[in-house]
C-alpha cells in the first residue's frame, strides 16, 4: 500500500481537484486498492508525509520532506502532464 499525500495551501481546493485526477490515473493503470490518498494543508505536509511514499503538491516542495515530490500543477494546466504522470507511476512501480 502506497501512501500519497496531496497538499495545497489549505488542503481543500486545488489539492482536491488534483487528487481526483491522480485517482483516475492510478485506477486506469490498475493500481486501484494499492494506494491511499491523504489531503492536507502544505503547512502540515512534513507531518503528513512522515510515513508517505509520495507528496504531490500545488506549491513548491516544502522543507523537511523526505519522500518523493511531484508537482500537481500539470494536472491543473495540462502542461507537462505526461511527465508528471510518469513520475507518479515510477513511484508506484517501486
Amino acid at each position, binding site marked *: 500500500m502506497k501512501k500519497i499525500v496531496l497538499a*495545497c*495551501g*489549505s488542503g*481543500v*481546493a*486545488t489539492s*482536491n*481537484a488534483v487528487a*481526483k*485526477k491522480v485517482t483516475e490515473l492510478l485506477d486506469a493503470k490498475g493500481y486501484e486498492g494499492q494506494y491511499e490518498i491523504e489531503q492536507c494543508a*502544505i503547512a502540515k505536509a512534513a507531518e503528513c508525509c512522515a510515513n508517505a511514499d509520495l507528496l504531490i*503538491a*500545488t*506549491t*513548491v516542495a516544502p522543507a523537511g520532506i523526505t519522500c518523493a515530490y511531484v*508537482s*500537481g*500543477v500539470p494536472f*491543473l*494546466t*495540462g*502542461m507537462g502532464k505526461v511527465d508528471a504522470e510518469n513520475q507518479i507511476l515510477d513511484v508506484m512501480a517501486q
Partner: protein
Amino acid sequence: MTSVDTSLFKPELVFLDFDARDRAGFFNKLGVELKARGYVKDTWLGAIKAREESYPTGLPCQAINVAIPHTDPEHLNKPYIAIVRPRRPIDFQGMGGMCDRVPAELIVNLGLLAHANEQVAALQALMQVFMDEEQVARVRAQTDAEGMVRVMREYCGA
C-alpha cells in the same frame, strides 16, 4: 463525477474590462465589489493577499494564462466564483514555482467552502475549459456578464 454547482456563476460576479494596474490594485478593487454584494468579510482582503504571496495561483494553461486566487472559507459569507477579465493582463506568480510571472488574462476568484464537492467539481471543470482552445475562444469573445455566465454554465455544467 459530482455535478458542478453552476449557481456559483452569476452575472453580478462577472467583471469585464476590469481596470487594475497590478495585483494589489486588483485585490483592492475586487474586494470592494465582493463586499458590496455581501460575499466576503472584512478579513478577506488581507487574507487573500497574504495567501497569494505564500501560495501563488498563476496558471499558464494550454489555451490561456489564468490565475485562481482563493483563501480560507472563514473569510467568506457565502460561496461564489467571480470571473474577472482585466483590461490589461495582471501579473501573478506561477503556482508551485513553475514560473516567475504569469500575465493573467482571466482571473477566477474561487470563493469555495471546505470540502464541498460541487465546488471542487467547478474548479475541475474550469481547468478543462482553460485547456481547450475552442472553449477559451468563446470565453474571450463574451462582451457582457450574462453571456459569460451562460458560457461558463454551459461548459462547466455537463
